[in-house]
């Protein structure tokens, strides 16, 4: 019980859950766990089953693309106060990228397999979660597009 209360407080402190009504947020707490990753440790790998997402409390996670026969390519870093992982929301619930701790990472993992039925059952919770995920997804897609524009319009040699 103490652990659940502690997780509830950590959840409430994270920017992703700010301003969510406590009774709605409390539904999520039962699907949460604390996690710690050492530098270089994978949070998830491309092709794996996407049943979690992660609230980063401390440290930095690199989003990587696996390149056969070569070192992976880091395409984005996610830091404290941010979240990583939305494949758990979208069928077929499979990770599209690797995510690896770049330093000591403390996170709250949220079990998507546990949460998905709760979103179906409680539409207020579902709406609150989508309302928070969609702007993040939109911003990251927008930034990725702009980086493509910059790479293609600004001269340079790769």
């Amino acid at each position: 019980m103490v652990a659940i209360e502690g997780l509830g407080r950590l959840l409430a402190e994270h920017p992703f859950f700010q301003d969510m009504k406590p009774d709605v947020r409390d539904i999520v707490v039962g699907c949460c766990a604390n996690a710690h990753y050492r530098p270089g440790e994978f949070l998830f790998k491309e092709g794996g089953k996407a049943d979690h997402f992660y609230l980063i409390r401390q440290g930095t996670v690199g989003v990587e693309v696996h390149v056969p026969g070569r070192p992976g390519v880091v395409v984005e870093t996610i830091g404290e106060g941010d979240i990583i992982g939305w494949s758990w929301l979208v069928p077929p619930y499979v990770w599209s990228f690797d995510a690896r701790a770049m330093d000591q990472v403390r996170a709250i993992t949220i079990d998507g397999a546990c949460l998905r039925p709760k979103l179906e059952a409680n539409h207020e919770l579902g709406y609150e979660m989508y309302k928070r995920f969609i702007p993040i997804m939109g911003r990251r897609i927008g930034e990725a597009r702009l980086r493509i524009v910059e790479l293609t319009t600004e001269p340079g040699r790769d």
Partner: protein
Amino acid sequence: MDGALLPRPAPADDPMVPRTFRIERRAAEVDGCFTLTLKATDGRPFAFQPGQFNMLYVFGVGEVAISVSGDCRDLNTLTHTIREVGTVTRAMAKLRVGDVIGVRGPFGRPWPIAEAYGNDILFVTGTVGLAPLRPLIYEVLNRREHFGKVVICYGSRGTHDILYEKQLHQWRGRFDLQVHVTVHSAPSGYRGRVGSVANLVKIARFDPDHTTAYVCRSETMTRPAVQALHDRGITSDRIYVTLERNMKCGVGFCGHCQMGPSFMCKDGPVYRYDTIEDIFTVREL
């Protein structure tokens, strides 16, 4: 010979007549970029303010507008960092120490500095955009006591494209300066940040109500940079941007750099954002 047919010496301050400068040093920067350190052949000092540009003339090839990237307190040295993108800059890249080029300038309105006294300072830039901002960074550091926090947010394509990398490391070592660097992509194991410059603005520590921001990015990337500043609460009247168009004469005669009612060569290239906000995204301009 009829004296009337002899070429008359031009007045020393004629903005259309180049002065000659000798290349004292040539340094390779990131791929496709190089820095020329110039000295006037007549030994006279050259004064400029941060944000101003010169028309550099490769004899027999042509002229091109390039921002000054050195320290404005050093009146005897003129520094330009140049990226090879066209005929003139490619010819310039082939010049060697001892060669002479023509210089007209300085032109344009500089970055305002005194207006930001008492504020935190935020520099937002990417790739070679750091070059036109560097004189301002030098000057802000020269007048460090007048400002609160000073933050540099810089982004580049990759880990090998970080302009003035050594200098960024030196600046990062100062206790009175925050330096945030990001790259578009990096090999696995890279310890720095990967992502957009907008993300750096998001994490930088400053007081949004008392911050002046200076943005030097391509016109396309200036828009999201300004949006990121707005998202942090910095209003348009405290954001300065620098724009680039096809500057030819440098004195507002030819109209090549016209944007609406403004000639960038003389009314810019530095603008307070609220003064151009309405026309900035008008495509026909």
